């Protein structure tokens, strides 16, 4: 037992020591480093997307630092990021944001993954007047709260799948279609749903199934059974990575025939790799695709980014990584234009951002959302067993024609 007491005392002192060392706070700019803070989901339901986000940030930090860093008042600085794991939990994220700002002395933040977590962090950064460039919070309600220090490089969530409905209506000869939809119960997916509702109203389409899916979703058989019975023209599913994987798995298992399947997060879920031919013809909303023709001097083109990212992390970059890298480019640009580390000067510089990155054009609207970049749609297409995402809309970048309707399972090999 004595040993145990010793062990106990040691661990207590270790904790105390750790706490003490925490209170020695970093400065916003330490020596040659500009310190950014970010809470990222490394565990929990968003862990895979959290890692995509972190990889995107890290890739950009390395690249910018290697290429000379950030020049402010004639001096070169490098980026450094302090990460915490928010466990995919908004409560934790808000607490960590507070910690980054108050205890680690961070003056500039990068966003977390997902709208819900961004919603939890934004009030904190706003309170302390900390500029935050975020790349993964697309919920429309983020941009209507009048936040002044929040900047998002991505298009708002309600735009994700509106285009898909327009496409379906177009294929239906301009007449409204019958839509079945299932969305996860979270801020992002519910916003995608609002977009669909708007599109349905606009096009005179009818929503015949409107299901909610639980978080941590692993099963949507009930919805699919209804789809089988009612035969809608379009099936829309959104529920982050797990939603996409579950949908394809069960649609193929249950052999659900639907002329059009629109989803989000196909590339983050690596659908074409994980499910191969089963995922063929799925239509996916994406913020970015490597074939787009945008360019910048750090990453070159989308294709080059794709190649470099693969080399570094061993998988093709989903758009979550690309937009996260872009967030760093925006910060660098803003620091250099502000030519100062004053938070308000940096914020003002961010506000007037107007630039092109490999990821797309970036210009912030009054609410902080990126207004200069359209959403794109791609479709999973296979040659033999080799499946790939092909851009089908908008037409400017379309590499393939949109394949419609999806053949019945009985006709698919």
């Amino acid at each position: 037992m004595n040993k145990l007491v010793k062990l106990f005392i040691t661990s207590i002192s270790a904790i105390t020591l750790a706490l003490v060392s925490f209170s020695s706070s970093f400065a916003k700019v330490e020596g040659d480093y500009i310190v950014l803070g970010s809470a990222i989901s490394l565990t929990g339901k968003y862990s895979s997307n959290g890692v995509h986000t972190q990889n995107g940030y890290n890739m950009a930090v390395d690249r910018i630092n290697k290429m000379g860093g950030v020049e402010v008042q004639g001096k070169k600085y490098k980026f450094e990021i302090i990460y915490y794991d928010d466990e995919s939990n908004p409560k934790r994220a808000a607490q960590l944001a507070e910690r980054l700002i108050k205890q680690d002395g961070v003056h500039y933040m990068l966003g977390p993954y997902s709208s819900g977590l961004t919603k939890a962090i934004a009030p904190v950064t706003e309170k302390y007047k900390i500029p935050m460039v975020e790349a993964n919070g697309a919920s429309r309600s983020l941009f209507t709260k009048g936040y002044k220090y929040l900047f998002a490089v991505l298009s708002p969530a309600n735009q994700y799948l509106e285009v898909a409905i327009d496409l379906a209506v177009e294929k239906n000869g301009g007449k409204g279609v019958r839509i079945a939809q299932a969305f996860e119960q979270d801020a992002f997916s519910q916003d995608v749903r609002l977009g669909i509702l708007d599109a349905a109203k606009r096009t005179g389409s009818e929503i015949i199934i409107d299901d909610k899916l639980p978080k941590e979703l692993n099963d949507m058989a009930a919805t699919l059974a209804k789809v089988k019975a009612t035969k809608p023209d379009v099936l829309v599913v959104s529920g982050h990575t797990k939603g996409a994987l579950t949908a394809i798995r069960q649609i193929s298992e249950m052999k659900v025939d639907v002329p059009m399947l629109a989803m989000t997060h196909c590339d983050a879920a690596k659908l074409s790799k994980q499910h191969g031919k089963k995922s063929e013809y799925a239509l996916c909303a994406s913020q970015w695709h490597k074939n787009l023709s945008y360019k910048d001097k750090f990453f070159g083109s989308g294709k080059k980014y794709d190649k470099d990212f693969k080399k570094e992390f061993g998988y093709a970059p989903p758009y979550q990584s690309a937009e996260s890298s872009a967030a760093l480019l925006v910060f660098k640009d803003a620091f250099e234009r502000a030519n100062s580390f004053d938070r308000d000067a940096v914020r003002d510089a961010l506000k007037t951002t107007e630039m092109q990155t490999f990821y797309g054009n970036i210009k912030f609207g009054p609410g902080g959302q990126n207004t200069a970049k359209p959403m794109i749609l791609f479709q999973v297409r296979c040659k033999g067993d080799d499946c790939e995402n092909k851009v089908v809309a908008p037409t400017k970048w379309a590499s393939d024609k949109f394949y419609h309707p999806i053949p019945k399972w009985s006709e698919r090999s």
Partner: protein
Amino acid sequence: MGNIKQKDLILYSGLIILGLAAPYLFSAFKVQLTYLCVLIVLAMTWNLQGGEMGYNTFGNILFYGLGMYLTASVQVGMFFPLAEWTESGGEKTFVHTTAQYFQGIGVGLLVAAIVPAIVAGAIGYAILGLRGHYFAICTLGLGIAAGEIAGGIEIIGAGQGFTTPPFPAEIVDNEARGKFFYFLSFALLIGTFVFVKYIYGSRFRLILNAIRDNEDKAEAMGIQTMKYKITGWMCSAFFCGLAGGIMGGLIGYIDSTDVAFDGREMGVFMVLMAILGGKGTLWGPVIGATLFHFFKEGLWTFILGWQYVALGVLIVVIVVYFPEGLMGWLREKYPERFGEVIDEKDRKAQVELK
């Protein structure tokens, strides 16, 4: 309460002074300190059921979440149309004035205390007849069901979540918000402690213990166990609701399953903290919650991605080495300190007999 010993008096006044000075001494840690107060309150109230009454409830998270939603809803609803506030992508932005904010949160907390207590009474009437595992499983369902239901109610934001009113902008001091919530939670902590201590000196506790030790016998003795079980649960719900209300305001964003009805984290933590410290004791939950919070805040960031594994190890260590919690372990080691007189000879004789 009248006969507090002098030694205790020094201890209590010392702790209160420390509590009052803490936000100034550790200014950067205000949010964590607020969490600590709330965690202690949750552990202490859980202990009333799990420790004193022997009813392992996972349902207290229901009252916590309910309190959170109620406070925020009342705070908004008193001055603005709630539906428009929570409407996703609502184009309008409402701003609370300073007076509105504090009036709102005051009334909100009041509601957040009373309604969960009533709900506890109603649910308790229905399910407190269950015993042992059956009660535990049933309450586990309560929290999960509440989360799913709240996630479907549009007026409180449904799956979109509910952004609670921001702290009034007219108060320029950056620290004001942190201090406000800290002192609020500290006051709640003191209130809860005084109440629980009062219960510890009362017949009520003896009845709860009787229920834990042998409910049938207690009933045979003429105790209306149902009445006391329900009352106990209502008391817990009262304080859990308040804790939830404060946390909602502090976090600033309520999500149905991850923040409010967070059975997976808060719901489990409150059980863990009480057991870690020693259930069925006054100080056990306080010590357990404090240690747990330190462990969590201090170590988790060093083991990014492995924190839940570490938590699992911690649980195993607690169960294997401290099955009675720290207080139980201390009591076994230093029984004199707890006022127990032990006849060494007799004890040895008993050991040898075995």
